[in-house]
């Protein structure tokens, strides 16, 4: 893009002058900048346009769902597709089931995962790297290979088709993330303060609760939201593990082939909205959550 930009510049001055140096760049630099903005806009359109289109599809009256060509600005707005979807048999039930499953997953994953994350962040111990690698490698295993045997086991112990059964499976999926994410959060909370609290007479638990926990809380909330999303979004495990009491995605998936297209649009929209809201709330943590997880 900025092929010649660098060669036309005068020789490089002192190191401290770097910010100053940026200004007098030539026309090629401006062109490169413009091209970068153009790429940014195109990529953003690729992401945003489909979201806009499903939004428009979901709020057009359902009587118009089959009109062609469609209009990019809705002539008439109606929520009757969405109310039709929400009132369809079993949808609200499965919606609440999904909320429950996701909530149990969140609590379990953090209760079990955060202590392990804390241990990884604060202690040096034998087997630390082995444990880390083991947790990382769990991500290499497809859900398929867990869900099918669990369905057999659940049938035997009476957990089949239950909220708890699905939540336990989702916890297994979310736990590795919870461990790695919480560990990266505790690493960023300075341990010196905790140690200072201990020298002032706190025991380690008090030091943790009074000093580290408040500092780690926003990050932990982001981690919690993230585990919630993992559970909310799962279709595969829920489809295998439930039959008469499906979660929302499992319910939608099985209804998909026999349902009118406006039902699908509304369903897609209803599933989409929480995800968008969630990403908005954890936007500041995105790089921290993901970037560090893979290291």
């Amino acid at each position: 893009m900025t092929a010649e930009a660098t060669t036309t510049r005068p020789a490089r001055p002192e190191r401290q002058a770097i910010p100053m140096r940026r200004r007098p760049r030539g026309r090629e630099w401006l062109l490169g900048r413009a091209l970068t903005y153009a790429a940014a806009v195109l990529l953003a359109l690729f992401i945003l346009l489909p979201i806009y289109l499903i939004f428009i599809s979901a709020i057009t009256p359902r009587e118009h769902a089959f009109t062609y060509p469609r209009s990019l600005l809705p002539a008439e707005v109606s929520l009757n597709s969405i109310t039709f979807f929400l009132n369809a048999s079993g949808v609200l039930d499965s919606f609440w089931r999904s909320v429950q499953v996701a909530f149990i997953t969140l609590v379990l994953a953090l209760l079990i995962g955060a202590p392990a994350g804390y241990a990884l962040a604060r202690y040096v111990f034998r087997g630390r790297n082995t444990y880390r690698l083991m947790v990382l490698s769990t991500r290499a295993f497809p859900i398929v290979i867990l869900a099918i045997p669990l369905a057999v086991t659940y049938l035997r112990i009476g957990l089949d088709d239950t909220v708890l059964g699905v939540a336990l499976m989702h916890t297994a999926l979310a736990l590795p993330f919870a461990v790695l994410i919480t560990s990266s959060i505790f690493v960023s909370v300075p341990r010196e303060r905790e140690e200072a609290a201990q020298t002032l007479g706190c025991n380690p638990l008090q030091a943790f609760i009074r000093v580290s926990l408040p500092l780690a809380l926003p990050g932990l909330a982001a981690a919690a939201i993230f585990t919630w999303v993992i559970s909310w979004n799962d279709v595969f495990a829920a489809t295998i593990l439930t039959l008469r009491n499906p979660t929302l995605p499992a319910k939608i998936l099985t209804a998909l082939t026999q349902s009118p297209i406006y039902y699908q649009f509304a369903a897609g929209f209803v599933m989409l909205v929480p995800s968008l809201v969630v990403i908005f709330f954890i936007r500041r943590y995105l790089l921290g959550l993901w970037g560090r997880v893979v290291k």
Partner: protein
Amino acid sequence: MTGEGLGRDTAPSPPAEAARPVARRLGWAPYALLLPSLVFLVLFFATPMFQAFVLGLQDRGGSWSLDSIQRMLADSKFRSAVTTTLAIVVLVLPIQFFLAMSMALVINAKLKGQSLWLYVFALPLGISELAAGIVWVSIFTQSGWLNTILQGLGIIDRQIIWQSAETPWLIILTVVIAESWRATSIIMIILVAGLQSIPHEYLEAAEVYGATTWQKVRRVILPMLRPSLQVAMILRVILAFQVFATVIALGGTGVTVLSAEAVRWANDIDNDHVAAAYAGLILMLSIMATALFLWLLPTREEQYA
């Protein structure tokens, strides 16, 4: 926690107290903290995985045989499930690599409103496979947005049927686009984090020697991104082998993939043994692809340290 008290009680004398209680506390506290997660992973990860192999290597009567695997191989939908899955994996990876790399470079260029761009590019991170599939159904369906736009621009004169069972490759293409839309964010985030860890001095040095943007990408950024690339690609390829809900949403019964076959055998045919055989196949393919990437993009082990 209680380890502290224990450490103090057993510390015999002041000089030893400096070292010993700490050593004691460090000795078992981390293991106690790890224990719940270890127990959980054994129960809900290791055990089912082991059971999956047992299930796959047994017939319906419960005796050891290769019967389930043979039934999988002989199934009329097996071959198309394998080829469709492989086609999706092979198409999705380069497209997503290109898109994610472009996004990461845009973010790294520090445009105005950098955090807003990052937010927009990261939006699909929270979107489920099924929701993404349905979003693209609204675009590819016969009276959908793509036909509307193409006809509005005068490119086509009548509606094109994108999702016909007679043209499975078109369905595969729609799945690839939907998957690229949904799952590029995660690769982008990993690459951005990797880009940020490249020391400025390297890029500045390249500039001093008159490197063009392309040369910087090719000679400095890509080699230094190798660890991040490797992780991102492995993660993506593993998820791509499990592609499921997008295919069901966009393809219906027109095409099938491995995990959809596993669900069919588990739920509709009610034969968990063949379903487990499919699961085992997906695992094997994932492991082979992981090994391939480890071999193609070798990195030093330091990234795990």
